[in-house]
């Protein structure tokens, strides 16, 4: 059983924005964010900040899952994030899943993709570095 439901706990910010767990895939959480007023930028499109928030939250989630699996306890602190916006996020649910590129002792490097209808055509990607204090 690779699922670790105890790390499902999303941050207060993520819950407030409307981010939820969609499903687990091989021990990695896939998050979802339904389209509503809290994420809207120009009419009927996601605000870049909301898409960025989803990507970032998916990045933290995959790291928390990996740390829980390794029984490591750490406070996560953001170092940086670079978001690439590839296509307009439209008025439907977005999904995001992260992948840990490198899990070090003090920091982790994570890549994240967000998509809507077609997973092979991401709407945004991110690379982030996270400090584990």
């Amino acid at each position, binding site marked *: 059983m690779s699922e670790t439901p105890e790390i499902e*706990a999303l*941050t*207060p*910010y*993520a*819950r*407030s*924005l409307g981010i939820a767990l969609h499903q687990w895939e091989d021990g990695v959480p896939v998050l979802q964010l339904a389209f509503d*007023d*809290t*994420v*809207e*930028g*120009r*009419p*009927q499109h996601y*605000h*870049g*900040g*909301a898409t*960025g*928030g989803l990507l*970032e*939250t998916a990045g933290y989630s995959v790291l928390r899952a990996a740390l829980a699996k390794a029984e490591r306890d750490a*406070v*996560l*602190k*953001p*170092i*940086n*994030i*670079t*978001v*690439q*916006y590839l296509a*307009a996020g*439209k008025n439907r649910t977005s999904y995001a899943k992260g992948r840990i590129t490198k899990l070090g002792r003090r920091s982790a490097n994570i890549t994240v993709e967000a998509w809507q209808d077609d997973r092979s055509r991401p709407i945004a990607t991110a690379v982030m570095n996270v400090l584990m204090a």
Partner: protein
Amino acid sequence: MRRYRLRTMTDMQQRKFDPEAATPFFASRGHSGWLGLKYSEHGDDWVELELPWREDLLGEEGQRVLASGPILSLMDMASGMAIWRAMDEFSAIATLDLRVDYVRPAREGASVFGRSQCYRITRSAAFVRGLAHDGDHDDPVAHIQAVFMKIASNASVVGDE
């Protein structure tokens, strides 16, 4: 005479895109409205917005530190407005690339201010850089760099493109 002409130029610029007048409109709905963004300051090519402290925007359970996501949104919005200010018109733009370096946590209970400057506009792209601070812009909490694309005026701004 000369002074009069200068003042007229400034007045004309303020009429076209006024960040102070535009912010309440942007913040009346959508993501910016949810965040509760407010106008703070602006110059010819920069805009500063305020993100008031909110208990439900914390980044980690049990810690009283603002999440990084709202700072990203704040900077995205301040950057867009800096571009409209620098172009002196409101037209459709889309974020292409946004980098945020979080240099320190924001103080608990403090508003975070996002200041972004548009330093270059080409026919199709706009380049911005900025910082977020919690009261003293000489002691930032984050630095940002971003590129936005202008969306062709014949593309639909509302609905699918």
